[in-house]
């Protein structure tokens, strides 16, 4: 279980000190208790100052960040990566956060961390960290708070990353966003969904295929078919009325549908052999029941209504 950041604070609540701090401490405690493998530092996690994160780390929360540095030593404040061995496969989880987070948030982060942090260029930090990891890990997964656009920049400029489990915007990702050999996802926001990345490995040195591709393409084709049928039905209802815009739409959607059909054919022919992944976003309440112990912590802190 891993987290990509912006776990503790929101820009709206960080100044409401006591309550926000209690919530953040319970979140940290729960993630430790769950045995989280790695937790990336997100920009909003710095709103209460890096000392809060140092405390969480000292209590056992496995924080990672490759580009959050101590300004005096230029060394990472937390480990840049963590390697976990699962079923004989060594997985490296690296953390990245953005140097700039917008005109309101960046000044707040600077105020809370005056002279205590330096956020380095994420592309350079990723490149440097991958050099250090070389030969020590079979899979490279970046936990990123950069946002999808910058994630793709990192993926293009730093070869060798298998997956980016991202965040920052809190997108609902239905399908992997691919750049080079790297597949990127986000798992929504506010804890509404849990991202499930299921990996099937035959040879970790080979690229991964998306095992959900066939289903995704079929769903898109079905959607376009429905749209075409709707337009055709409207045309049938008005046989005497010429509607060039509607006819053009039917032609364009049909072309799009046929292109997808070709893509589907290729995906089916390629089969599901070799390294593959399946990413699913599952609504939390449909998948996992609540835990009584954590509920007691929340109730004990007097913040169950927050």
């Amino acid at each position: 279980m891993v987290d990509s950041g912006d776990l503790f604070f929101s820009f709206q609540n960080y100044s409401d000190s006591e309550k926000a701090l209690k919530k953040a401490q319970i979140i940290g405690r729960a993630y430790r208790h769950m045995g989280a493998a790695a937790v990336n530092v997100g920009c909003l996690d710095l709103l209460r100052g890096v000392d809060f994160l140092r405390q969480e780390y000292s209590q056992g929360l496995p924080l990672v960040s490759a580009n959050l540095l101590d300004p005096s030593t230029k060394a990472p404040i937390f480990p840049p990566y963590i390697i976990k061995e699962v079923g004989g496969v060594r997985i490296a989880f690296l953390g990245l956060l953005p140097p700039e987070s917008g005109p309101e948030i960046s000044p707040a982060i600077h105020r809370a961390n005056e002279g205590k942090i330096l956020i380095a260029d994420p592309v350079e930090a990723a490149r440097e960290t991958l050099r250090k990891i070389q030969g020590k890990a079979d899979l490279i997964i970046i936990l990123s708070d950069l946002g999808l656009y910058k994630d793709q920049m990192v993926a293009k400029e730093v070869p060798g990353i298998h997956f980016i489990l991202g965040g920052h915007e809190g997108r609902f990702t239905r399908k992997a966003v691919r750049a080079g050999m790297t597949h990127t996802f986000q798992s929504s926001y506010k804890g509404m969904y849990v991202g499930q990345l299921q990996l099937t490995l035959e040879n970790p040195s080979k690229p991964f295929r998306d095992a959900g591709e066939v289903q995704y393409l079929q769903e898109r084709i079905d959607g376009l078919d429905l749209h075409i049928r709707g337009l055709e039905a409207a045309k049938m209802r008005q046989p005497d009325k010429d509607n060039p815009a509607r006819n053009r739409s039917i032609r364009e959607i049909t072309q799009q549908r046929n292109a997808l059909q070709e893509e589907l054919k290729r995906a089916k022919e390629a089969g599901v052999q070799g390294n593959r992944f399946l990413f699913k976003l599952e609504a939390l309440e449909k998948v996992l029941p609540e835990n009584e112990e954590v509920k007691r912590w929340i109730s004990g802190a007097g913040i169950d209504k927050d």
Partner: protein
Amino acid sequence: MRIWFPEGKRIYELLSALLIGSFLLSPASIAKAAETEILILHTNNVTGYLLPCPT
């Protein structure tokens, strides 16, 4: 489609549910002789978020 959840409650539901999940879901098992299966659970922006939108 849901577009709004009370923020705090969702976070705690997530925490308590994931805790159970971490015990229920085995991180790794051998699928076939030559294959390894790994399941990674992922969260992001549990408390803070900037600009949610679909991808």
